């Protein structure tokens, strides 16, 4: 005669399922698949919390563990590959003949393809209206990676970014082929941490 109740049987089945899901998360390579697996992992742990007589913890786990944490992962994985460029020059450096065929665009596209980045060029009016003296502050305090400005006298384009970035040193060596492009790297300032 079986002397285990239905609840105990369910608990064992869920625990074995939990171990299988944990192994699947550890061995999988694709981040998109792992996000789906971690959502189901959270739902299985929430059912185990209820079996352990803790419904309040189960509510918190369903709300946070299986809704907010996958959202955080999705946002951060999609944001990670973004390379944000602020175009202050706004002439044919990026867009010529209403198409993305400018010299600067081709250089930046070559550079971002090298690192499998996603190029995102913006000319946000609020950020562009700030003076040139505040470019370094803009680089440090917002998520802008590169700022394009134009020197009207010498007719050269200046690309500004943070010096600590390895990406920018590569861009500097790539831009040496062009005469009218100059890369300026801001030094890291010590914030006294």
């Amino acid at each position, binding site marked *: 005669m079986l002397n285990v109740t239905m609840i*105990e049987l369910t*608990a*064992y089945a869920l*625990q*074995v399922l*939990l*171990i299988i899901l*944990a*192994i699947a*998360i*550890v061995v999988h390579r694709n*981040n998109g698949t*792992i996000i789906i697996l*971690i959502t189901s*992992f*959270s739902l299985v*742990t929430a059912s*185990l*919390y209820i*079996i*352990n*007589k*803790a*419904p*309040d*913890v189960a509510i*918190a*786990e369903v709300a*946070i*563990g299986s809704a*907010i*944490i996958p959202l*955080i*992962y999705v946002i*951060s*994985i999609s*944001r*990670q*590959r973004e390379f944000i460029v602020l175009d202050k020059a706004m002439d044919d450096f990026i867009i010529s003949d209403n198409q993305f065929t400018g010299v600067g665009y081709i250089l930046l596209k070559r550079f971002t393809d090298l*690192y499998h980045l996603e190029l995102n060029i913006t000319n946000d009016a609020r950020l562009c209206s700030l003076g040139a003296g505040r470019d370094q502050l803009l680089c440090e305090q917002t998520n802008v*990676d590169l700022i394009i400005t134009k020197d009207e006298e010498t007719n050269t384009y200046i690309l500004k970014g943070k010096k*600590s*970035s*390895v*990406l920018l040193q*590569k861009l500097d060596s790539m831009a040496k082929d062009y005469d009218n492009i100059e890369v300026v790297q801001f030094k890291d300032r010590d914030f006294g941490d």
Partner: protein
Amino acid sequence: MDPILTFVVILIGFYGLSTSTNIIKSVFCVTIIESGVILLFLNLGNLDGGTIPIVGEGVTMIADPLPQALMITTIVIGSTVTALALMLCIKVFHHYGTVEWAEILRREEGK
């Protein structure tokens, strides 16, 4: 419920943490360990087989409510730790151009 099976989940998390080559993968493994620890705490507070901790008439044995209150805090703090770790991961990617541990160490030594 068996605390040994819960402990296996924690060990799988530690195995993944020590063998992962990717920063994002390490953050996933921290999430697994956290879930395992919560389950172990709740399991140890409920070994005698009580009921849900709401005291009423005819209720003699309840599950220990103290670990449950602590574990709600753990879930909330765990989500913020995940968010902070992933934010640092994005910063590392923009600094080194990769999120592989070995590649980051190689570039740091090559400077």
